[in-house]
């Protein structure tokens, strides 16, 4: 094993960051894993309604910034390794992209996977009309028709965000809406949103790029011409990631009592938990409960009195940075742009890049991108950029 921790938290969104902070504040050695960056799914949601209280609106980045800073201040170590397997048991083990890790307790707070309809040809149209991030890709559909598939509050929020730019938004609800009355009122007041209940998407239309969907309702099937489709159904929990715990039909982890699974050292928080409400306050409450439960589970072993900890635990040795330094050998004429592919991000980068190119009289300027803001940058691309360029202007948050 490459390392041992008191508590390993898998997923650093609202629930995971809160659980990690609570456990670290109790004096435990805590690592929080997120293969992209701490923040979780809310990075993709521009504004949070009814947060912190009813009728209030908070920018998601502001909330996440506070949560990351609080976890950091409590002593949580953030890891960007990908957790590929959690072996539950008396001494849980995690398989990660950086090796195997042991922990006294594990909090599973991965959230859910991206929405999918499970239709033929769907994966080929992802990024070509199909998206699960209105904040990222919504502006691509300015003045055009889009459809949103789902029945929960998240679906409603995404539809409302899309209605700010799209010409028309059709919300296809497979059964009955499960969103709140407040969101129902906002949807109704939008003027650009039509909600169809009992509507199931049965086929996708489009050659290379989405051009429409086939929708089945109680009145029969009909074609719906849309350029964008945002599915929020078919999201899966982390059941396949965790050995030895019970899951529901959607892969969410079942609990015996609140955040406790049948395994005494494994806890679950946030959307990964079967039956969890889809809201920020409940994710925070889950995280706090899971963090406290992990502390309680470890207390008998750790003792209740004063504990001596190594203050350098988890801190990289000073010399280790040299091992990964690969940039710095290129000349200052070697400059590139790296886009996250959010709408207008590349245009902004190119515009700024042209100004720098003229200012420094650069013969050319390189360019790279990742396919979408929701995906981690490919390691090979990072390797190439760091070996080839002296300076890289990066679009990260917009």
């Amino acid at each position, binding site marked *: 094993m490459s390392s041992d921790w008191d508590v390993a938290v898998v997923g650093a969104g609202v629930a995971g960051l809160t659980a990690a902070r609570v456990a670290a504040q109790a004096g435990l050695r805590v690592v929080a894993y997120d293969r992209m*960056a*701490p*923040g979780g799914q809310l*990075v993709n949601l*521009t504004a949070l309604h009814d947060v912190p209280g009813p009728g209030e609106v908070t*920018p998601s*980045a*502001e909330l*996440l*910034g*506070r*949560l*990351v*800073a609080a*976890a*950091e201040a409590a002593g949580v170590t*953030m890891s*960007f390794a990908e957790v590929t397997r959690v072996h539950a048991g008396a001494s849980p083990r995690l398989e990660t992209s950086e090796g195997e890790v042991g922990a006294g307790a594990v909090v599973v707070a991965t959230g859910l996977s991206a929405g999918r309809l499970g239709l033929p040809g769907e994966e080929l149209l992802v990024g070509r009309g199909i998206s699960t991030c209105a*904040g*990222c890709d*919504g*502006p691509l559909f*300015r003045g055009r028709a889009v459809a949103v598939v789902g029945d929960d509050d998240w679906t409603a929020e995404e539809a409302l965000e899309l209605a700010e*730019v799209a010409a028309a938004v059709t919300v296809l609800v497979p059964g009955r809406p499960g969103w709140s009355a407040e969101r129902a009122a906002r949807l109704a007041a939008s003027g650009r949103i039509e909600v169809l209940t009992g509507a199931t998407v049965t086929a996708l239309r489009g050659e290379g790029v989405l051009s429409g969907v086939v929708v089945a309702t109680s009145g029969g099937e009909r074609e719906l011409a849309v350029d964008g489709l945002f599915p929020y159904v078919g999201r899966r929990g982390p059941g396949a990631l965790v050995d030895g715990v019970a899951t529901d039909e959607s892969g969410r982890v079942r609990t015996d009592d609140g955040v406790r699974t049948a395994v005494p050292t494994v806890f679950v928080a946030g959307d990964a938990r079967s039956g969890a409400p889809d809201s920020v306050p409940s994710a925070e409450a889950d995280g706090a409960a899971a963090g406290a439960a992990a502390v309680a589970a470890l207390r008998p072993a750790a003792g209740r009195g004063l504990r001596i900890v190594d203050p350098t635990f988890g801190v*990289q040795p000073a010399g280790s*940075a040299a091992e*990964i*330094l*690969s*940039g*710095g050998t290129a000349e*200052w004429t070697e400059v590139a742009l*790296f886009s996250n592919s*959010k*709408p*207008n*991000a590349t*245009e*902004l*980068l190119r*515009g*700024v890049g042209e*100004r*720098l190119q003229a*200012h*420094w009289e650069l013969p050319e300027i390189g360019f790279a991108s990742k396919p979408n803001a929701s995906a981690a*940058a490919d390691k090979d691309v*990072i390797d190439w*950029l*760091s070996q080839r*360029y*002296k*300076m*890289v*202007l*990066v*679009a*990260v*948050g*917009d």
Partner: protein
Amino acid sequence: MELEKRGVVAPLLVTSTFLPLVEAQAKARRVTPRVVVVPHPVGGLNEAELAERIEAAAGALLPLADEARGSA
């Protein structure tokens, strides 16, 4: 941020809304980011609005880049 850890000068182009999150993430990565902040949002802007963002970002980036090159 990974690029900065590898010794590449990597200014981050960030909107004001995302700045607190980017700063917190940088701290978690033990990196002091070079940040160029522009007003939020960038997506959905028309050509003239985008040109304003480019102007603002270039105004912040050029001295930052000159300083990085000068101190190298």
